[in-house]
């Protein structure tokens, strides 16, 4: 890598803009990283009309692998910043996103976080934006399955991790706030036997069961819920993950109601077609986090176009910006940089190649917009 | 000098599992005595030493060192109180060199032996004492050799140097001559005599009868976990049980 002393030394506007992309290329979340990367490439191609330049300035993009490890990510970020990077973007890991947001603030550069869902990233500082959805939006979408939550009982079945706790807190805030009675059944992350918890879910007699689960044990968990007859007891909602997980629900697939951030074909917009064409040219398929990459590219181009080399101008350019993207119209909320966007209700149907998602309904962006973070 | 015996055992019995290893052993060893301990293999001699040094606790009975009841004391306390021993098979610290082995023993005597705040030096008291001990057993020239490379006889001598450096008042030697070549027996005998001459109380298990007879003031005989007799060498040698159970025809 070469070092550049920053754009202004050369005086010319034609100096390239250094963009640092940090995401998992290896490690446990490499697959998410791949989708994000492919989406970003597609988005960049779309937003710069294939030139890779903004107003004649080349966007010099450096990709770094965070290995899913915050230590590595911080080292890479410092390296990039030290070499004059003006914009950082990426990562699917919330822990890494927190560290990168911290670095962005310490060093006064722009940071556009990737698919990492933690609500805490929204409004964490002036320099940090999101290109994806956050936990709150997931939860709020789940809430749309029961109509008016008032007086209903919602049980959250989740792992006792930051992700699970975040979802429970989200449900308490969103649906609890709308009058639902919320109960959590949290399971240790290392637990391998879920049968007894399935019983516990039934015993709670809920109107809705919200499942927030990540990782390999989800297959065993769904089997347990099915075997114990949980689906007969109440509607079960969970988030639909990436393509690789479509087959994970086994027999339970048809019984689950899914909330979804994005799957290939969900939006039906022109820009979606543009993205899919580009992805397929590159040998990729549209997936859960393709849009996050796509949006990130759009935001970077906007920031550079309107803000030049001045980070404050970049922030101004993004705050309150409404634009057309893959999922339709999205808005960068001025107050806390939340990304206000539509979400989807989805079900799985069995086809020739196994289970595949089908859209039930698009949930309006404002319906699931998080409250302004303070 | 106290008026207590150096070592007293009162009605010591030891059971392990179903086996009776020691049966009601009572023994008094006065200060400065050299006591030979003999008996057939498996009679309980090493076991007796283990009881005295604290490696084993008796099922019944009392052990006294210089009048103090030490029955419940752990090994290291007894050692610190002046009890030294060797093992039936040589045991040095193989990764350390000869001097370091002996210096550890010398440090232990001085107190604050395991202090982090003291760095051993070539000139400190413990080193000097260790070198003197090596000199005494004729091993000073091997001070820098690694303990693992010593020959059998040399290991035995270094072990005794460790004892000397500890300055114990009571010493237990378990078969010091085992495996020592005939050529080295006389020299090692002299080293042991030297230990005793310094006024220390010595208990020695040994199957080399001439060594026992040549050194011991008194000889104790163990048989099937019992103390058969503790008497002058001549009297013990004349004892018919000793003759038949221990000596056989070889004597």
């Amino acid at each position, binding site marked *: 890598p070469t070092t550049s002393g920053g754009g202004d030394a050369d005086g010319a506007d034609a100096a390239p803009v250094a963009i640092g992309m940090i995401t998992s290329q290896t*490690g*446990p*979340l*490499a*697959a998410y990283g791949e989708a994000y990367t492919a989406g970003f490439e597609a988005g960049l191609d779309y937003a710069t009309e294939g030139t890779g330049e903004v107003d004649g300035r080349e966007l010099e993009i450096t990709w770094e692998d965070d290995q899913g490890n915050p230590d590595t990510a911080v080292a890479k970020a410092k390296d990039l910043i030290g070499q004059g990077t003006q914009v950082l973007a990426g990562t699917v890991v919330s822990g890494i996103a927190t560290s990168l947001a911290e670095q962005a603030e310490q060093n006064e550069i722009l940071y556009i976080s990737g698919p990492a869902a933690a609500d805490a990233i929204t409004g964490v500082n002036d320099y940090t934006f999101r290109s994806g959805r956050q936990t709150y939006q997931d939860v709020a979408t789940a809430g749309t399955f029961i109509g008016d939550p008032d007086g209903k009982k919602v049980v959250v079945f989740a792992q*006792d991790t930051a992700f699970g706790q975040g979802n429970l807190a989200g449900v308490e805030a969103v649906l609890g706030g709308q009058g639902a009675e919320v109960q959590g059944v*949290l*399971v*240790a992350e*290392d*637990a*391998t*036997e879920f*049968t*007894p*918890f399935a*019983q*516990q879910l039934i015993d709670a007699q809920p109107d809705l069961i919200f499942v927030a689960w990540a990782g*390999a*044990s989800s*297959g*065993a968990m769904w*089997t*347990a819920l099915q*075997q*114990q*007859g949980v689906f007969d007891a109440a509607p079960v909602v969970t988030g639909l993950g990436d393509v*690789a*997980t479509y*087959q*994970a629900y*086994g*027999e339970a697939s048809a019984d689950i109601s899914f909330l979804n951030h994005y799957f290939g074909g969900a939006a039906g917009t022109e820009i979606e077609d543009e993205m899919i064409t580009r992805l397929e040219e590159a040998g990729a398929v549209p997936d859960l986090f393709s849009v996050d990459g796509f949006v990130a590219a759009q935001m970077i181009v906007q920031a550079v176009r309107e803000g030049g080399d001045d980070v404050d101008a970049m922030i101004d350019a993004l705050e309150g910006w409404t634009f057309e993207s893959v999922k339709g119209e999205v808005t960068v909320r001025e107050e806390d940089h939340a990304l206000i966007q539509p979400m989807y209700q989805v079900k799985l149907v069995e086809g020739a190649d196994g289970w595949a998602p089908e859209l039930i309904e698009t949930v309006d962006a404002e319906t699931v917009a998080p409250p302004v973070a303070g | 000098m106290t008026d207590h015996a150096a070592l007293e055992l009162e009605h010591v019995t030891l059971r392990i599992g179903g086996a009776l290893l020691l049966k009601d052993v009572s023994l008094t060893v006065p200060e400065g005595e050299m006591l030979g301990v003999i008996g057939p293999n498996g009679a309980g001699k090493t076991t007796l030493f283990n009881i005295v040094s604290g490696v084993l606790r008796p099922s019944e009975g009392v052990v006294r060192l210089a009048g103090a009841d030490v029955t419940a004391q752990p090994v290291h306390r007894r050692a610190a109180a002046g009890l030294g021993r060797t093992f039936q098979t040589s045991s040095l610290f193989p990764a350390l060199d000869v001097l370091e082995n002996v210096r550890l023993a010398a440090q232990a005597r001085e107190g604050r032996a395991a202090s982090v705040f003291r760095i051993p030096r070539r000139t400190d008291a413990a080193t000097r004492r260790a070198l003197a001990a090596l000199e005494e057993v004729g091993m000073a020239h091997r001070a820098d050799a690694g303990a693992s490379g010593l020959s059998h006889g040399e290991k035995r001598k270094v072990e005794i140097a460790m004892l000397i450096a500890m300055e114990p008042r009571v010493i237990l030697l378990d078969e010091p001559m085992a495996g020592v070549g005939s050529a080295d027996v006389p020299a090692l005998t002299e080293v042991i005599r030297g230990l005793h001459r310094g006024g220390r109380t010595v208990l020695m298990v040994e199957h080399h009868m001439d060594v026992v007879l040549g050194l011991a003031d008194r000889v104790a005989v163990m048989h099937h976990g019992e103390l058969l007799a503790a008497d002058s060498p001549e009297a013990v040698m004349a004892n018919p049980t000793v003759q038949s159970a221990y000596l056989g025809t070889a004597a």
Partner: protein
Amino acid sequence: MDTLILLVITGLGLGALYFLVASGLSLIYGLMGVLNFAHGAFLTIAAFLGWEAGRRISDGTWTGLVISALVGILVGATVAVLTEVLIIRRLYERHIEQALVTVGISLAAVALFEGIWGTDPIYTDRPAWLTQTTEILGARIPNDRFVLIACAALVLGGIVLFLRKTRYGLIIRAGVENRHMVTALGIDVRRSFTLVFAIGGAAAGLGGVLASVYYGYVSAHLGSVLLIFAFIVTVIGGLGSLTGAAIASVLVAVLQQFANFYLGGTGDLVVVVLLAAVLLIRPRGLMGKAA
């Protein structure tokens, strides 16, 4: 009441899985003093290749499952033998180094599996009966638990018989203590050691395939997750005691179930406390021989 039964029987099933993993580990560790961190890798590769074979021949049927199991056993044994012959053998009587190379192997193996099969779990198909339940006293017990329990019992019986009825147990215990002296009695220790590794590997292989049935997927990390519990079970049960490992497996798994359910998901903390407590009160473990 039915919750209680559910907890106990699923606990037994989980215990059976722990034991299947721990049996090979305990055999190798107890007899040969090799703390085999690569055991998890044996298990994972057996699960992967078993799955590959099973799905090629007949996916989701009993034939497929049996073939998976056989392939898994074979793969586990082969990989274990290769490890022993190529690596462990060079380090006999250096137990720390042996444990260390197995750490290296496990690091490398997991990375390699990720490279080959990817980081995402691969979901497996099973015979339908295994995904159904049987009702016992009002508790709906998943059928695969019964298979696990039966296999664990078979493995336990088989290994105990092997050790009782042949001289191998004796040779290996002696060989661990003093290898040279065993050869000096005219016995080829190396063959015996390799055999023990093969048996341990075969048990791991079976455990791997059954674990993939239990979890419903195979992944590069399948083995590492189970390995830590297998270690704990081996140590609590007492080194070298297979029955000890069996008892500890059940104890740990059932306790874990109850703690997870009634004590706010503290299952693994309780297990850790149990381990520390057992070792401090009874350093040899439940059934370990006196030092």
